[in-house]
């Protein structure tokens, strides 16, 4: 009985702690103001830019992250731990440091800058740089979830498919991938959420210009400089947007799978 009370108390405390800042945002802004802000071009630009860049970043993360997750889940090799650590590094790296690193690597004067300039690409201050920054910070979330999902599929299923004459590609796409799909989708959703909220690496690497590189988090920060109520309104919009999309993912036809994947990850 006592244990149960203590558990409930701990859970309630944490939930309040998480909910209070969100509630405080909503309390300080009226729906009319919110609607008015939505009509401002600079807000609409930031919204579309955020949606577009985070979607593109998630796509790239899945496209390039899946092979890495597959190798990490199914192969043993000597440098595996090093690779795993490298892949997880962006989680602990302060985003601003990531942004400086990106500038020093892919900036005009960066290590790879000469090569990029030679083929006509100048990344800093472009929308593409926003996507690059998001991919950098969001990749680890996808890879860790997808790797766990792929590794959780028992070898005997793919082995059975192989003995029945399935090619490795068939085994991957028709056996392994469907079974690991929940974890892969959960990882993609987490990556997308991280990309949507990205701030530090973006403002450092891509700069801050409405319509080109000013995503919602940057717009919130910029508004905060001279108009607190505008910053609050933008934050509320961002919360509504993220919450709707995350909730939508859970209720989508394969959404139960996303929830199931996190449940399975918890169980592991």
């Amino acid at each position, binding site marked *: 009985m006592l244990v149960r009370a203590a558990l409930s108390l701990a859970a309630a405390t944490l939930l309040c702690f998480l909910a209070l800042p969100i509630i405080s945002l909503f309390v300080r802004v009226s729906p009319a103001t919110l609607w008015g802000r939505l009509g401002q071009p600079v807000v609409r630009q930031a919204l579309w830019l955020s949606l577009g860049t985070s979607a593109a970043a998630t796509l790239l993360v899945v496209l390039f992250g899946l092979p890495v997750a597959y190798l990490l889940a199914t192969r043993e090799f000597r440098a595996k731990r090093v690779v795993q650590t490298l892949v997880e590094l962006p989680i602990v790296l302060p985003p601003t440091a990531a942004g400086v690193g990106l500038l020093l690597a892919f900036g005009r*004067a960066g290590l790879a800058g000469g090569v990029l300039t030679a083929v006509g690409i100048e990344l800093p201050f472009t929308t593409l740089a926003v996507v690059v920054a998001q991919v950098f910070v969001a990749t680890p979330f996808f890879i860790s979830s997808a790797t766990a999902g792929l590794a959780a599929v028992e070898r005997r299923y793919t082995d059975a498919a192989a003995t029945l004459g399935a090619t490795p590609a068939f085994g991957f796409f028709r056996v392994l991938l469907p079974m690991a799909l929940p974890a892969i989708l959960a990882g993609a959703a987490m990556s997308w959420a991280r990309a949507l909220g990205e701030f530090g690496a973006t403002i450092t690497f891509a700069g801050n210009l409405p319509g080109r590189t000013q995503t919602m988090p940057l717009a919130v920060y910029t508004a905060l*400089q001279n108009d607190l109520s505008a910053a609050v309104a933008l934050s509320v919009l961002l919360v509504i947007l993220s919450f709707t999309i995350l909730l939508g993912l859970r209720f989508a036809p394969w959404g139960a799978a996303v929830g199931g994947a996190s449940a399975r990850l918890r169980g592991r």
Partner: protein
Amino acid sequence: MRRALWALFVLSLARAHGPDRTLTVFAAASLTEAFTELGDSLRAHDPGVVVQFNFAGSQLLALQLIEGAEADVFAAADARSMQAVADSGLVDDPIPFARNRLVVILPATNPGRIAALRDLARPGVKIVLAGDAVPAGRYARAVVANLGQSTGFPPAYEHRVLANVVSEEENVRAVVAKVRLGEADAGIVYASDVSAAAGGGVRTLVIPDAANVLATYPIAVLHRSTHQAAARAFVALVFSPAGQRVLARHELLPIAGRP
């Protein structure tokens, strides 16, 4: 090892709660080097005082103060940020203590091949300014407008220069960083941001006095400061001949007339 860490932790707690004399100064980002040096000399006079700085865009510091941040002294890069703080009843009678000119800065390698102020209007030049809520950003836009009105500059100068802006940074030091890294072709910042003491590393183009803007920096002690004496001592140091010499060394101009 673990015990040593614990000792450090306990010590840091003791410091945080003890009756220490930590003076907290909120100052415009462009004052970073000058004020750090002043803080050191205050400490040299009175070893019991620890001066802690929060350097950022004045508009952000003003917002933090209005929202309840603890500080003893506020030094802003413009009257507007100081006025916002005064309007909230946090300070009375701020006093101007220095002025600052603006300069155009270019990376040492000058990738935009900019030789004169007119070149800033050339299509494709990447210009970085502070945002228009930041004092330095507002002054920079005023300078561009003034240049556009000057003889020898094309009629659409202001429009063309502003069209070349690729980023609006949250404080003036972020502008310096992007230019110093060679990613932007040009930026407009304070003379004090690129003084020899601030690290240099960039080329500068002088803006003629007729088109330049003189930023005036006000300073004030906050009413809610719990270290009034130390705070006043810091402000007095800023106005003292020694303090003004430090400011001058960092390319800040004294308030009464030009040197």
